[in-house]
């Protein structure tokens, strides 16, 4: 960290651009005594021009490039792209593909939330809160590997359906994993979330009131912890979310502890959704085979999906050729970034790690 003294008792500290476990992002805070008086975020360290590159590739070719932006959340980041492309191409995917997309999407949500929990432990100085979630996350990655074929980036939900079918051995294994993990979640609640020191560091810290949350346009767990019951899965149900029942948490307290609890509850609900999908999934094809030179009709499409960090959107403009004319990605991390100065100004310096990571800002995703 680099500092310069700007006035008698003011220090400007530049934090980043490398954080332990949290990616490349820099923000500058001005500190007076123990209070932060100004915060200026400075993203762009991992900007790779993904949007420009989609204009040079046809619809199928962009998938591996786009999914690598959001490394912990790969299924959800390309799903709105696939949905918008299918709308432009005028095709409808088979129902089994939609259920499989739901299963992988919820699995991915658990994986992403566990990673978030681990790094929150690092930022609070709690080493066990780092080790346990990352150890359990590996079991879910193995589940994803059974269907997807790779551990992290499997390019699964492509335009036209999904790439692979689910093996027979997936269902019993998944049920065993969920039984194990539900017991572990009880342990997490008891040991991590009820610990008095954790409560002292997160209760009442980083409060984002409801009107500010809506006006600033935040999404995801941050919005849900600010007393807004908003989730794309219930607002604009895609795949078959209207046929499964699950809860969307929301809390009135709007502080960091509420955001932690939202993540925890969402993990439970994801397991519930996957169980129901495994009961309801029909037989059938999983893919509409598209040629790589598939043309899309001219026009615009906007696809929306609830990713782990919030609502993700893809706006695709097509001119009727095999390559999209313009792809604009609406990333939850980027939309939540504006809350960072608002929350940090006026708080203690020592609260900065807890607040920063509770917004779940993923730099690579925000920079595209």
């Amino acid at each position, binding site marked *: 960290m680099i500092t310069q003294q700007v006035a008698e008792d003011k220090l400007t500290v530049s934090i980043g651009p490398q954080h332990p476990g949290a990616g490349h992002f820099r923000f500058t805070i001005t500190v007076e005594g123990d209070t932060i008086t100004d915060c200026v975020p400075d*993203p762009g360290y991992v900007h790779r021009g993904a949007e*420009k590159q989609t204009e040079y590739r046809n619809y199928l070719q962009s998938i591996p490039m786009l999914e690598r932006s959001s490394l912990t959340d790969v299924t959800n980041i390309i799903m709105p792209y696939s949905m918008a492309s299918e709308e432009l191409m005028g095709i409808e995917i088979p129902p089994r593909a939609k259920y499989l997309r739901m299963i992988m999407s919820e699995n991915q949500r658990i994986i992403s939330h566990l990673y978030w929990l681990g790094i929150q432990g690092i930022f609070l100085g709690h080493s066990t809160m780092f080790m346990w979630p990352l150890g359990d996350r590996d079991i879910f990655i193995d589940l994803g590997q059974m269907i997807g074929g790779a551990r992290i980036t499997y390019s699964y939900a492509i335009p036209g359906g999904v790439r692979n079918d689910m093996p027979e051995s997936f269902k019993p294994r998944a049920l065993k994993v969920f039984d194990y993990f539900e017991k572990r979640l009880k342990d997490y609640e008891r040991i991590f979330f009820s610990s008095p020191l954790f409560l002292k560091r997160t209760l009442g810290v980083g409060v984002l009131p409801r009107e500010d949350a809506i006006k600033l346009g935040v999404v995801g767990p941050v919005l849900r912890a600010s007393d807004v019951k908003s989730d794309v899965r219930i607002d604009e149900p895609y795949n078959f979310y209207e046929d499964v029942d699950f809860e969307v948490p929301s809390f009135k307290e709007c502080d960091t502890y509420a955001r932690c609890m939202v993540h925890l509850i969402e993990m439970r609900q994801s397991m519930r959704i996957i169980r129901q999908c495994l009961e309801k999934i029909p037989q059938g094809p999983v893919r509409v085979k598209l040629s790589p030179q598939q043309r899309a009709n001219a026009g615009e499409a906007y696809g929306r999906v609830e990713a782990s960090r919030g609502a993700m959107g893809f706006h695709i403009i097509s001119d009727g050729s095999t390559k999209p004319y313009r792809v604009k990605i609406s990333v939850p991390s980027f939309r939540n970034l504006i809350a960072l100065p608002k929350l940090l100004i006026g708080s203690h310096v020592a609260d900065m790690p807890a607040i920063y990571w509770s917004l779940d800002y993923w730099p690579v995703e925000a920079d595209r």
Partner: protein
Amino acid sequence: MSSSITAPKQELSPAEKAIVDSIGQLGDKAKIAYVRPKRVKILASRENIVEVAGFVRDVLKFDHIANVTGTDFPKDKAIEVDYHFESIDGPGLRSLVFSLGCRVPTEDPVLPSLIEVFPAVNYHERETAEMLGVVFKGHPNLSRFLLPEDWDDIPPLLKAYRLPGRLEAGE
């Protein structure tokens, strides 16, 4: 080309029809580009855009900004800036995405900023400004956001900018 499975046609819901009627109040200031199930888009000109945005927020009750897209249309010599809105507190409007578009000529890409109406467009407009060269009048800080500070080429998302080492877009 054709495909074996085509998407079924969907009907417009009452919410969209109500919006279309409300937009009629604006008269000349806004033109409807398309009305599809769950997606409505209107176009405004740059003189009226701040007023139309206020209308969208207060009357149509779309209060949550989702995205700001900037697209370069060299054939029309225009840059189009689209604002996409979602609604949190609007009644029955949760599934709708409302788009507000505005075209500016490429030689004079100046547009009033919507930051007074929607504070959340701060970073979105900043990114559009640096990627396409659009100037948002009234925006407090249009400095480099995602691009490096020493970027000296033309704004990268213009079609005139070619990614080095790639075939031309559209080939």
